[in-house]
């Protein structure tokens, strides 16, 4: 390849980098979705909570409790883990590609992009040493 060709290839590398950076998703929108889930669970609004969950999380909840999502998400072993974070606010949100992590007071929430909307894939999560988080809601 000529020097011109290589320069063009280099320019493409820069383009790839710039496009990758410009495609960075909005972490603050993910934080809002995570807080909305916590508030919905804390106010016992199962229907609202379920609209914020990714399909795989809904499926996992319904299968675990053999109940509709609206009821399953308010089961004590799920709700107790999540509603602790109500009113605490966000301690930080990070988004990479199509995934995000939001740290709330007393909870960590994982989300995925669905179109332009953030949906929760896991919530009520607590860290474990050298292992994935353990989550009350987990799917997707």
């Amino acid at each position, binding site marked *: *390849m*000529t*020097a*011109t*060709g*290589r*320069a063009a*290839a*280099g320019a493409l*590398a*820069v383009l*790839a*980098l710039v*496009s*990758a*950076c*410009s*495609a*960075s998703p909005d972490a603050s929108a993910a934080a809002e979705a995570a807080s909305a889930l916590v508030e919905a669970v804390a106010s016992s609004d199962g229907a609202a909570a379920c609209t914020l969950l*990714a*399909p*795989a999380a809904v*499926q996992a909840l319904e299968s675990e409790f053999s109940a509709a999502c609206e009821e399953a998400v308010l089961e004590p072993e799920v709700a107790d883990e999540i509603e602790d974070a109500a009113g605490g606010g966000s301690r930080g949100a*990070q988004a*990479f*590609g*199509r*995934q*995000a*992590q939001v740290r709330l007071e007393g909870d960590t929430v*994982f989300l*995925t*992009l*669905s*179109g332009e909307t953030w949906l929760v*894939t*896991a919530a009520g*999560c607590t*860290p474990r040493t050298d292992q*994935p*988080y353990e*989550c009350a809601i*987990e*799917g*997707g």
Partner: protein
Amino acid sequence: MSALRSALRHNGLTLFFGVLFVVTLVGQALTGLAYFNEEQRGAGLEPVTLGQYLTSSVFAVDVTENWQSEYLQFLLFILATVWLVQKGSPESKKLEDVGRESDEEQHVAEHATESSPAWARVRGWRLSVFSHSLSLVMGGLFLLSWLAQSITGTTAYNESQLRDRQDPVTWAEYLALPEFWNRTFQNWQSEFLAVASMVVLAIYLRERGSPESKPVGTSHDATGVEG
């Protein structure tokens, strides 16, 4: 029409590899998209469009990790062949020509010819820069591609971490992870193997008409002879 045909003929090598580059990049994009969406669906996540995939770090890191190793390969080959030789290889200069060579041999400054590039004709910083311009550009492209690999690699790694419900890492932390170095070394080793193979095989084997080979009837001992 004959001017176009002439331009195509005079730039055939660049055009051939340029077209191959574009076609294979498209192939990588389409197969990469299919593979990425397979993983997304397997994890119960939404598949992405081609546009979303092309602007993703997952695609960018796969592209740039290969680019950086190619530029490194050529950079090292250009620099190493100044000082190191291989007896019998057309990829090597003659054994007695080791080093930077004289100004006369390099046709610079007062030894420049009428057709010498402007920056090669007069002593000074321009001649110094032009004397190393190939390595400087190759080295710059290598560093740029490697930097791009590290940045997009961090994002791609973190996306995977979050999908697996694990904490993301910073760019500095990513540089110390096996993931980064494994991606890097697996590309480097193949480039170095290819160069070493070419240097050695071209001592004993020929491709008639190729400037990368010695003429078919040239002895195995002849060094620095191209067909």
